[in-house]
Protein backbone atom coordinates (compact mmCIF):
# COMPACT_ATOMS: atom_id res chain seq x y z
CA UNK A 1 0.00 0.00 0.00
CA UNK A 2 1.37 3.36 -0.90
CA UNK A 3 0.23 6.42 1.03
CA UNK A 4 -1.25 8.95 -1.31
CA UNK A 5 -3.36 11.99 -0.95
CA UNK A 6 -7.06 11.83 -1.52
CA UNK A 7 -8.13 15.21 -2.72
CA UNK A 8 -11.81 14.67 -2.38
CA UNK A 9 -12.71 13.53 1.08
CA UNK A 10 -12.45 15.95 3.97
CA UNK A 11 -12.40 13.90 7.11
CA UNK A 12 -15.38 13.96 9.38
CA UNK A 13 -13.21 14.63 12.40
CA UNK A 14 -11.02 17.53 11.52
CA UNK A 15 -11.99 18.67 8.05
CA UNK A 16 -8.42 18.27 6.86
CA UNK A 17 -7.45 16.47 3.71
CA UNK A 18 -7.33 12.68 4.04
CA UNK A 19 -4.31 10.51 3.54
CA UNK A 20 -5.23 7.15 2.04
CA UNK A 21 -3.40 4.05 0.93
CA UNK A 22 -3.47 2.94 -2.68
CA UNK A 23 -2.05 -0.22 -4.19
CA UNK A 24 -1.20 0.99 -7.67
CA UNK A 25 2.47 1.57 -8.34
CA UNK A 26 1.80 4.19 -10.98
CA UNK A 27 -0.16 6.62 -8.85
CA UNK A 28 1.59 9.96 -9.16
CA UNK A 29 -0.07 11.13 -5.98
CA UNK A 30 2.07 8.91 -3.77
CA UNK A 31 5.29 10.85 -3.62
CA UNK A 32 6.35 12.28 -0.27
CA UNK A 33 9.46 14.27 0.44
CA UNK A 34 11.57 13.55 3.52
CA UNK A 35 12.55 16.80 5.20
CA UNK A 36 13.94 17.88 8.53
CA UNK A 37 11.56 18.42 11.43
CA UNK A 38 9.69 21.69 11.83
CA UNK A 39 11.99 24.72 11.80
CA UNK A 40 15.11 22.62 11.25
CA UNK A 41 17.30 22.63 8.16
CA UNK A 42 18.26 19.24 6.80
CA UNK A 43 21.21 19.12 4.40
CA UNK A 44 20.55 17.61 0.99
CA UNK A 45 21.93 14.11 0.76
CA UNK A 46 22.46 13.67 4.47
CA UNK A 47 21.32 10.19 5.55
CA UNK A 48 18.49 10.02 8.06
CA UNK A 49 19.46 8.53 11.41
CA UNK A 50 17.26 6.06 13.23
CA UNK A 51 15.61 8.10 15.93
CA UNK A 52 15.76 11.34 13.95
CA UNK A 53 12.65 13.47 13.61
CA UNK A 54 11.47 14.26 10.09
CA UNK A 55 8.52 15.63 8.19
CA UNK A 56 6.94 14.02 5.17
CA UNK A 57 5.75 16.60 2.66
CA UNK A 58 3.39 15.56 -0.13
CA UNK A 59 4.89 16.46 -3.49
CA UNK A 60 1.79 17.56 -5.31
CA UNK A 61 0.08 19.63 -2.61
CA UNK A 62 2.88 20.78 -0.32
CA UNK A 63 1.02 19.45 2.72
CA UNK A 64 2.75 17.57 5.54
CA UNK A 65 1.84 14.18 6.96
CA UNK A 66 0.08 15.19 10.15
CA UNK A 67 -1.69 13.62 13.08
CA UNK A 68 -3.71 14.88 16.02
CA UNK A 69 -6.16 13.63 18.62
CA UNK A 70 -9.13 13.05 16.33
CA UNK A 71 -10.63 9.66 15.57
CA UNK A 72 -10.11 8.24 12.11
CA UNK A 73 -13.35 7.83 10.13
CA UNK A 74 -13.32 4.08 9.45
CA UNK A 75 -11.50 2.33 12.26
CA UNK A 76 -11.65 4.80 15.13
CA UNK A 77 -7.88 4.91 15.48
CA UNK A 78 -6.03 8.22 15.43
CA UNK A 79 -6.56 10.27 12.31
CA UNK A 80 -3.67 10.91 9.95
CA UNK A 81 -4.22 13.84 7.65
CA UNK A 82 -2.37 16.28 5.44
CA UNK A 83 -1.77 19.73 6.84
CA UNK A 84 0.04 22.94 6.03
CA UNK A 85 0.88 25.09 3.02
CA UNK A 86 4.00 24.91 0.89
CA UNK A 87 5.62 22.49 3.30
CA UNK A 88 5.04 24.52 6.44
CA UNK A 89 2.59 23.29 9.05
CA UNK A 90 3.21 22.87 12.77
CA UNK A 91 4.94 20.58 15.27
CA UNK A 92 2.24 17.94 14.80
CA UNK A 93 3.87 17.26 11.42
CA UNK A 94 6.94 15.76 13.11
CA UNK A 95 7.49 11.99 13.05
CA UNK A 96 10.37 9.99 14.51
CA UNK A 97 11.98 7.41 12.22
CA UNK A 98 12.14 4.19 14.23
CA UNK A 99 14.53 1.59 12.91
CA UNK A 100 17.37 -0.65 14.01
CA UNK A 101 20.89 0.29 13.11
CA UNK A 102 22.36 3.74 12.71
CA UNK A 103 20.70 5.02 9.56
CA UNK A 104 17.49 4.51 7.62
CA UNK A 105 18.66 2.04 4.98
CA UNK A 106 16.95 2.35 1.63
CA UNK A 107 15.88 -1.28 1.53
CA UNK A 108 15.15 -1.48 5.23
CA UNK A 109 11.86 -1.48 7.05
CA UNK A 110 11.12 1.49 9.23
CA UNK A 111 8.33 2.73 11.41
CA UNK A 112 7.10 6.28 11.80
CA UNK A 113 6.18 7.29 15.31
CA UNK A 114 4.30 10.54 15.76
CA UNK A 115 6.53 12.78 17.87
CA UNK A 116 3.73 14.35 19.92
CA UNK A 117 1.18 11.57 20.39
CA UNK A 118 3.54 8.56 20.01
CA UNK A 119 1.25 6.56 17.72
CA UNK A 120 2.71 4.58 14.81
CA UNK A 121 1.73 5.24 11.19
CA UNK A 122 -0.31 2.16 10.18
CA UNK A 123 -2.65 0.59 7.67
CA UNK A 124 -4.95 -2.22 8.79
CA UNK A 125 -7.05 -2.64 5.67
CA UNK A 126 -10.28 -0.71 6.20
CA UNK A 127 -11.42 0.57 2.82
CA UNK A 128 -13.28 3.68 1.83
CA UNK A 129 -16.38 3.66 -0.29
CA UNK A 130 -17.29 6.28 -2.86
CA UNK A 131 -15.80 8.51 -4.12
CA UNK A 132 -12.42 6.96 -3.26
CA UNK A 133 -13.53 3.40 -3.53
CA UNK A 134 -10.97 0.80 -2.62
CA UNK A 135 -8.52 3.20 -1.02
CA UNK A 136 -7.41 2.17 2.40
CA UNK A 137 -7.41 4.15 5.60
CA UNK A 138 -4.04 5.31 6.91
CA UNK A 139 -4.14 6.03 10.64
CA UNK A 140 -2.08 6.15 13.81
CA UNK A 141 -2.04 3.28 16.25
CA UNK A 142 -0.46 3.06 19.67
CA UNK A 143 0.22 -0.66 19.50
CA UNK A 144 3.26 -2.09 17.75
CA UNK A 145 2.41 -4.58 15.07
CA UNK A 146 3.43 -5.63 11.58
CA UNK A 147 0.98 -3.03 10.32
CA UNK A 148 3.35 -0.25 11.34
CA UNK A 149 6.22 -1.27 9.09
CA UNK A 150 6.95 0.68 5.92
CA UNK A 151 9.42 0.23 3.09
CA UNK A 152 10.59 2.67 0.49
CA UNK A 153 9.61 1.70 -3.06
CA UNK A 154 9.73 4.15 -5.94
CA UNK A 155 11.44 7.43 -5.44
CA UNK A 156 14.16 9.91 -6.12
CA UNK A 157 17.13 9.46 -3.86
CA UNK A 158 19.82 12.07 -3.28
CA UNK A 159 23.25 10.55 -2.92
CA UNK A 160 25.21 11.47 0.18
CA UNK A 161 27.88 14.04 -0.39
CA UNK A 162 31.48 12.88 -0.72
CA UNK A 163 32.40 14.19 2.72
CA UNK A 164 29.74 12.12 4.35
CA UNK A 165 30.76 8.91 2.60
CA UNK A 166 34.19 9.16 4.22
CA UNK A 167 32.66 9.67 7.67
CA UNK A 168 30.44 6.66 7.32
CA UNK A 169 33.39 4.46 6.47
CA UNK A 170 35.08 5.45 9.69
CA UNK A 171 31.98 4.75 11.75
CA UNK A 172 31.82 1.20 10.47
CA UNK A 173 35.42 0.50 11.47
Amino acid at each position, binding site marked *: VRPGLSAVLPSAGSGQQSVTGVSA*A*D*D*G*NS*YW*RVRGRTAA*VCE*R*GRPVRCGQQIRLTH*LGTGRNLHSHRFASPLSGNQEVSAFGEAGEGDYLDDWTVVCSGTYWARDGEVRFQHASTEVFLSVTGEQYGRPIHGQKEVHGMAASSQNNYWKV*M*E*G*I*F*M*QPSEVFKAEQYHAEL
Partner: protein
Amino acid sequence: VLSDEEKRKQYDAYGEEGLKDGHQSSHGDIFSHFFGDFGFMFGGNPRQQDRNIPRGSDIIVDLEVTLEEVYSGNFVEVVRNKPVARQAPGKRKCNCRQEMRTTQLGPGRFQMTQEVVCDECPNVKLVNEERTLEVEIEPGVRDGMEYPFIGEGEPHVDGEPGDLRFRIKVLKHPVFERRGDDLYTNVTISLVEALTGFEMDIAHLDGHKVHVARDKITKPGAKLWKKGEGLPNFDNNNIKGSLIITFDVEFPKEQLTNDQREGGCLKAPSRQRGCTDLSPE
Protein backbone atom coordinates in the same frame (compact mmCIF):
# COMPACT_ATOMS: atom_id res chain seq x y z
CA VAL B 1 -6.03 25.87 -31.39
CA LEU B 2 -3.74 23.02 -32.33
CA SER B 3 -0.58 25.09 -32.17
CA ASP B 4 -1.50 26.47 -28.76
CA GLU B 5 -2.02 22.96 -27.46
CA GLU B 6 1.36 21.89 -28.82
CA LYS B 7 3.14 24.83 -27.24
CA ARG B 8 1.42 24.18 -23.94
CA LYS B 9 2.58 20.57 -23.98
CA GLN B 10 6.13 21.65 -24.73
CA TYR B 11 6.04 24.26 -21.99
CA ASP B 12 4.67 21.77 -19.50
CA ALA B 13 7.27 19.20 -20.37
CA TYR B 14 10.39 21.29 -20.75
CA GLY B 15 9.90 24.64 -19.03
CA GLU B 16 10.83 27.95 -20.53
CA GLU B 17 14.16 26.68 -21.78
CA GLY B 18 12.45 23.97 -23.82
CA LEU B 19 10.21 26.45 -25.53
CA LYS B 20 13.23 28.43 -26.72
CA ASP B 21 15.15 25.37 -27.88
CA GLY B 22 12.13 24.03 -29.71
CA HIS B 23 12.20 20.51 -28.23
CA GLN B 24 9.80 18.15 -29.88
CA SER B 25 8.15 15.24 -28.19
CA SER B 26 7.65 13.28 -31.39
CA HIS B 27 8.39 13.83 -35.07
CA GLY B 28 4.81 13.45 -36.09
CA ASP B 29 3.48 16.30 -34.03
CA ILE B 30 5.55 18.91 -35.78
CA PHE B 31 4.53 17.66 -39.24
CA SER B 32 0.87 17.59 -38.33
CA HIS B 33 1.18 21.12 -37.12
CA PHE B 34 2.37 22.34 -40.48
CA PHE B 35 0.60 20.07 -42.96
CA GLY B 36 -2.59 19.23 -41.16
CA ASP B 37 -4.02 15.80 -40.73
CA PHE B 38 -3.88 14.16 -44.15
CA GLY B 39 -4.18 10.65 -42.81
CA PHE B 40 -1.14 9.23 -44.52
CA MET B 41 1.74 7.92 -42.47
CA PHE B 42 5.24 9.28 -42.21
CA GLY B 43 7.41 6.21 -41.86
CA GLY B 44 4.43 4.10 -40.90
CA ASN B 45 4.39 5.25 -37.32
CA PRO B 46 0.87 4.61 -36.07
CA ARG B 47 1.33 6.93 -33.12
CA GLN B 48 0.84 10.08 -35.15
CA GLN B 49 -2.82 9.52 -35.79
CA ASP B 50 -3.63 9.77 -32.14
CA ARG B 51 -2.43 13.09 -30.88
CA ASN B 52 -3.85 12.50 -27.46
CA ILE B 53 -1.37 9.89 -26.24
CA PRO B 54 -2.05 9.24 -22.58
CA ARG B 55 0.83 10.38 -20.44
CA GLY B 56 1.87 9.59 -16.89
CA SER B 57 2.06 12.48 -14.45
CA ASP B 58 5.09 14.72 -14.07
CA ILE B 59 6.99 14.72 -10.80
CA ILE B 60 8.35 18.07 -9.68
CA VAL B 61 10.99 17.92 -6.97
CA ASP B 62 12.48 20.96 -5.21
CA LEU B 63 16.25 20.79 -5.35
CA GLU B 64 17.80 22.86 -2.59
CA VAL B 65 21.11 24.41 -3.49
CA THR B 66 23.54 26.50 -1.47
CA LEU B 67 24.89 29.85 -2.60
CA GLU B 68 28.32 28.19 -2.85
CA GLU B 69 26.87 25.84 -5.45
CA VAL B 70 25.31 28.75 -7.31
CA TYR B 71 28.74 30.41 -7.44
CA SER B 72 30.87 27.44 -8.46
CA GLY B 73 28.34 25.05 -9.94
CA ASN B 74 27.99 21.42 -8.89
CA PHE B 75 26.84 17.97 -9.99
CA VAL B 76 24.25 16.17 -7.90
CA GLU B 77 23.90 12.43 -8.20
CA VAL B 78 20.38 11.17 -7.85
CA VAL B 79 19.11 7.61 -7.96
CA ARG B 80 15.72 7.20 -9.57
CA ASN B 81 13.73 4.11 -8.71
CA LYS B 82 10.56 3.94 -10.77
CA PRO B 83 7.97 1.45 -12.03
CA VAL B 84 8.47 0.69 -15.71
CA ALA B 85 5.99 -0.99 -18.03
CA ARG B 86 7.57 -4.19 -19.26
CA GLN B 87 6.18 -6.83 -21.60
CA ALA B 88 4.43 -9.74 -19.97
CA PRO B 89 3.03 -12.90 -21.51
CA GLY B 90 -0.48 -12.79 -22.88
CA LYS B 91 -2.73 -10.00 -24.00
CA ARG B 92 -4.73 -7.32 -22.29
CA LYS B 93 -7.54 -4.98 -23.23
CA CYS B 94 -6.49 -1.44 -23.99
CA ASN B 95 -7.83 1.79 -25.54
CA CYS B 96 -11.32 0.91 -24.40
CA ARG B 97 -13.94 3.25 -25.73
CA GLN B 98 -17.67 3.47 -26.22
CA GLU B 99 -19.00 2.99 -29.72
CA MET B 100 -22.45 3.11 -31.22
CA ARG B 101 -23.59 -0.08 -32.91
CA THR B 102 -26.45 -0.14 -35.33
CA THR B 103 -28.38 -3.39 -35.65
CA GLN B 104 -31.22 -4.04 -38.08
CA LEU B 105 -34.35 -5.40 -36.43
CA GLY B 106 -36.42 -5.64 -39.56
CA PRO B 107 -37.01 -3.86 -42.87
CA GLY B 108 -36.55 -0.15 -42.19
CA ARG B 109 -36.20 -0.65 -38.44
CA PHE B 110 -32.86 -0.09 -36.76
CA GLN B 111 -31.64 -0.08 -33.23
CA MET B 112 -28.63 1.83 -31.95
CA THR B 113 -26.86 0.60 -28.89
CA GLN B 114 -23.76 1.64 -27.04
CA GLU B 115 -21.03 -0.90 -26.78
CA VAL B 116 -17.67 -0.92 -25.04
CA VAL B 117 -15.05 -1.81 -27.60
CA CYS B 118 -11.43 -2.53 -26.67
CA ASP B 119 -8.31 -3.20 -28.64
CA GLU B 120 -6.00 -6.02 -27.85
CA CYS B 121 -2.53 -5.04 -26.76
CA PRO B 122 0.50 -6.94 -25.56
CA ASN B 123 0.28 -7.45 -21.86
CA VAL B 124 2.40 -5.23 -19.64
CA LYS B 125 3.37 -5.35 -16.04
CA LEU B 126 5.03 -2.71 -13.88
CA VAL B 127 8.53 -3.56 -12.75
CA ASN B 128 10.66 -1.38 -10.49
CA GLU B 129 13.87 -0.24 -12.16
CA GLU B 130 16.66 1.95 -10.94
CA ARG B 131 19.13 4.27 -12.58
CA THR B 132 21.44 7.08 -11.57
CA LEU B 133 20.77 10.53 -12.91
CA GLU B 134 23.07 13.48 -12.70
CA VAL B 135 21.68 16.94 -12.20
CA GLU B 136 24.02 19.76 -13.10
CA ILE B 137 23.72 22.91 -11.02
CA GLU B 138 24.97 25.52 -13.43
CA PRO B 139 26.73 28.60 -12.06
CA GLY B 140 24.38 31.54 -11.72
CA VAL B 141 21.25 29.39 -11.64
CA ARG B 142 18.20 31.20 -10.30
CA ASP B 143 15.35 30.23 -8.00
CA GLY B 144 12.57 28.43 -9.84
CA MET B 145 14.65 27.28 -12.79
CA GLU B 146 13.95 23.68 -13.74
CA TYR B 147 16.06 20.79 -14.94
CA PRO B 148 13.82 18.25 -16.66
CA PHE B 149 14.49 14.57 -17.18
CA ILE B 150 12.21 13.36 -19.92
CA GLY B 151 10.37 10.15 -19.22
CA GLU B 152 11.58 9.79 -15.64
CA GLY B 153 8.25 10.70 -14.12
CA GLU B 154 5.24 8.46 -13.57
CA PRO B 155 4.65 5.65 -16.04
CA HIS B 156 1.42 5.12 -17.94
CA VAL B 157 0.53 1.58 -19.04
CA ASP B 158 -1.25 2.80 -22.16
CA GLY B 159 1.10 5.59 -23.10
CA GLU B 160 4.22 7.54 -22.28
CA PRO B 161 5.80 8.18 -18.92
CA GLY B 162 5.67 11.69 -17.54
CA ASP B 163 8.79 13.73 -16.77
CA LEU B 164 10.86 14.30 -13.67
CA ARG B 165 11.66 17.97 -13.10
CA PHE B 166 14.05 19.38 -10.52
CA ARG B 167 13.10 22.89 -9.49
CA ILE B 168 15.96 24.92 -8.07
CA LYS B 169 15.46 26.44 -4.66
CA VAL B 170 18.34 28.61 -3.46
CA LEU B 171 18.85 28.42 0.31
CA LYS B 172 19.47 31.48 2.45
CA HIS B 173 23.12 32.03 3.21
CA PRO B 174 24.37 33.13 6.65
CA VAL B 175 26.82 35.70 5.30
CA PHE B 176 25.81 36.74 1.78
CA GLU B 177 22.49 37.92 0.44
CA ARG B 178 21.74 37.47 -3.25
CA ARG B 179 20.02 40.12 -5.31
CA GLY B 180 20.12 39.11 -8.95
CA ASP B 181 23.78 38.64 -9.77
CA ASP B 182 24.94 40.91 -6.91
CA LEU B 183 25.91 39.80 -3.44
CA TYR B 184 25.36 41.86 -0.29
CA THR B 185 27.15 41.41 2.99
CA ASN B 186 27.60 43.31 6.25
CA VAL B 187 30.90 43.87 8.01
CA THR B 188 31.36 45.39 11.45
CA ILE B 189 34.42 47.57 12.08
CA SER B 190 35.64 49.17 15.28
CA LEU B 191 35.36 52.84 16.03
CA VAL B 192 39.12 53.25 15.64
CA GLU B 193 39.06 51.57 12.23
CA ALA B 194 36.17 53.78 11.19
CA LEU B 195 38.20 56.86 12.03
CA THR B 196 41.69 55.85 10.98
CA GLY B 197 41.20 53.26 8.29
CA PHE B 198 41.75 49.49 8.05
CA GLU B 199 42.63 46.52 5.88
CA MET B 200 40.88 43.15 5.81
CA ASP B 201 40.14 40.01 3.80
CA ILE B 202 36.64 38.71 3.30
CA ALA B 203 36.24 35.01 2.47
CA HIS B 204 34.13 34.53 -0.66
CA LEU B 205 31.84 31.58 -1.50
CA ASP B 206 34.59 29.50 -3.07
CA GLY B 207 37.10 30.42 -0.38
CA HIS B 208 39.06 33.07 -2.29
CA LYS B 209 39.77 36.23 -0.36
CA VAL B 210 38.44 39.65 -1.28
CA HIS B 211 40.85 42.30 -0.11
CA VAL B 212 39.37 45.50 1.33
CA ALA B 213 41.47 48.50 2.31
CA ARG B 214 40.35 51.91 3.51
CA ASP B 215 42.47 54.86 4.57
CA LYS B 216 39.71 57.39 4.93
CA ILE B 217 36.93 57.82 7.49
CA THR B 218 34.19 55.20 7.14
CA LYS B 219 30.73 56.25 8.30
CA PRO B 220 28.19 53.73 9.67
CA GLY B 221 26.14 52.42 6.77
CA ALA B 222 28.80 53.25 4.20
CA LYS B 223 28.84 50.91 1.21
CA LEU B 224 31.79 49.63 -0.75
CA TRP B 225 31.30 48.24 -4.26
CA LYS B 226 33.58 45.46 -5.46
CA LYS B 227 32.90 44.92 -9.16
CA GLY B 228 33.25 41.39 -10.44
CA GLU B 229 32.97 39.84 -6.99
CA GLY B 230 29.29 38.95 -7.25
CA LEU B 231 27.71 35.86 -8.76
CA PRO B 232 28.32 34.68 -12.32
CA ASN B 233 25.54 35.53 -14.73
CA PHE B 234 23.58 32.42 -15.76
CA ASP B 235 23.59 33.24 -19.47
CA ASN B 236 27.23 34.29 -19.57
CA ASN B 237 29.40 32.93 -16.78
CA ASN B 238 32.22 35.33 -17.64
CA ILE B 239 30.16 38.28 -16.47
CA LYS B 240 29.92 38.58 -12.72
CA GLY B 241 27.82 40.88 -10.60
CA SER B 242 29.20 43.00 -7.78
CA LEU B 243 29.82 42.46 -4.10
CA ILE B 244 28.40 45.28 -1.99
CA ILE B 245 29.80 45.54 1.52
CA THR B 246 27.90 47.61 4.06
CA PHE B 247 29.94 48.74 7.05
CA ASP B 248 28.57 48.93 10.53
CA VAL B 249 30.59 50.70 13.22
CA GLU B 250 30.78 49.19 16.66
CA PHE B 251 30.86 51.66 19.50
CA PRO B 252 32.45 50.65 22.83
CA LYS B 253 29.97 49.00 25.15
CA GLU B 254 31.06 50.69 28.36
CA GLN B 255 32.09 54.20 29.14
CA LEU B 256 35.78 55.00 28.64
CA THR B 257 37.97 55.10 31.75
CA ASN B 258 40.22 58.07 32.40
CA ASP B 259 43.27 56.15 31.17
CA GLN B 260 41.51 55.26 27.97
CA ARG B 261 40.46 58.81 27.50
CA GLU B 262 44.15 59.78 27.73
CA GLY B 263 44.60 57.97 24.46
CA GLY B 264 45.78 54.35 24.95
CA CYS B 265 43.20 52.84 22.65
CA LEU B 266 43.43 55.35 19.88
CA LYS B 267 47.16 54.80 19.50
CA ALA B 268 47.09 50.99 19.44
CA PRO B 269 46.35 49.30 16.11
CA SER B 270 43.28 47.13 16.18
CA ARG B 271 41.43 44.84 13.85
CA GLN B 272 37.82 44.09 13.17
CA ARG B 273 37.24 43.15 16.80
CA GLY B 274 37.84 46.73 17.62
CA CYS B 275 38.50 48.49 20.85
CA THR B 276 36.02 46.63 22.99
CA ASP B 277 38.73 45.37 25.30
CA LEU B 278 40.16 48.87 25.42
CA SER B 279 43.31 47.99 27.33
CA PRO B 280 45.88 50.76 27.12
CA GLU B 281 49.20 49.61 25.65
